[in-house]
């Protein structure tokens, strides 16, 4: 059987997919708080920018995060069009290691200029040991692994995503 083809999310997704973030008159289904940072004991922030092939920040992308470590199943969504620096910003918690693999968050990217969404992963800088033996990270050419590992500053993890170029992020076929 065929698959329905993917088509771009286009430039005008915000009022349908992230309406409250962009102040449109429609209710949000989901936002960037995978957990409530004011009540959760160990919240982290995940932030970053997305760059195009000219190294310019992409202001009209939508980022989705999904994490499931067997205990917490968390989903969030945020567009890069409202932060003054066009960052994506999420409040979540660090997932646990599953089956000895390094903890990670699934990242799904949508944007004008992408006919089909891209999947990547966010790993954590302070999980050096598990990162070194992680099955998926070890499948990635060594020189490109760092494109998946978020830098830690306090409780903030930062990972910039490059669509193209020398620093091109590793994207996965799922």
């Amino acid at each position, binding site marked *: *059987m*065929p*698959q*329905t*083809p*993917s*088509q*771009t*999310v*286009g*430039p*005008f*997704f*915000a*009022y*349908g*997919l992230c309406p409250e973030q*962009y102040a*449109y*008159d*429609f*209710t949000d*289904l989901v936002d960037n708080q995978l957990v409530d940072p004011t009540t959760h004991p160990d919240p982290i922030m995940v932030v970053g920018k997305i760059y*195009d*092939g*000219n190294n310019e920040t*992409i202001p*009209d992308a939508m980022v*989705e995060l*999904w*994490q*499931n*470590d*067997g205990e917490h*199943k968390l*989903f969030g969504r945020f567009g890069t069009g409202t932060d003054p620096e066009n960052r994506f910003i999420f409040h979540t918690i660090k*997932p646990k290691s*599953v*089956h000895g*693999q390094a903890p*990670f968050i*699934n990242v*799904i990217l949508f944007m*004008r*200029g*992408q*006919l*089909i*969404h891209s999947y990547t992963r966010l790993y954590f800088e302070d999980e050096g040991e598990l990162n070194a033996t992680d*099955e*998926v990270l070890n*499948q990635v050419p060594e020189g490109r692994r760092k494109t998946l590992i978020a830098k830690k500053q306090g409780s903030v993890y930062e990972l910039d995503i490059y*669509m*193209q170029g020398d620093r*091109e992020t*590793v*994207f*996965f*076929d*799922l």
Partner: protein
Amino acid sequence: MSDKILNRFDPEYQPAKLYEGYKSTILRAPSKPLVVIKQSLSELTGPIFGDMNIKPLDHDLTKNSVKNGEPMGERMVVHGKVINEKGQPIPHTLIEIWQANAAGRYVHKVDKHDAPLDPNFVGAGRCMTDAEGNYHFYTIKPGAYPWGNHPNAWRPNHIHLSLFGPNITTRLVTQMYFEGDPLLAYDPIFKSVSPKAREFMLAKFDMERTEPFYALAYRFDIILKGPNATPFESL
């Protein structure tokens, strides 16, 4: 939740990442090959949305943003079935919907097209499939609109749809077009997929489901990735 290994996106039906006719892909499409990985617990699950996430008028775009009257345009019901590649229905899955109004204008603040906004139409909605995978929503037929991709470029009439399916690997954002639209022949986004794949983005007029004195009807079935017949070889 499903613990089945799912098929990959099928290049016979899916667009390539880079399609130069659609100019924005040139600086935004990943250029290096994708890394094929084994699907883990996180990939084999995904967010679950329930009826509690849906408000009573979310599935009726002709009513969910009324301010002082009915929206302008041709009222229609869009319906169909969400299935996987094996033909199995996908029950209780979320469909998010957004589109231009009858004049081809989006509510989005960045849309500068010189066409009127409709005070009674936002153009956003959502619905769930039922136990058999069937869905329907009411809306107004969207208008065509110009864009800057190439000289005198027009997008054919279309509705944007976003689906989740059983897990994050079945995620799909697509556009539903209308059978017979003359603009399809000129649209690089529609033409970014193979000719045989294009018909799976076309809604068909459905006389039987029209509602007398109320709405025209279009049928649009959606096929998500399905379980793989062969076990995934360990990498």
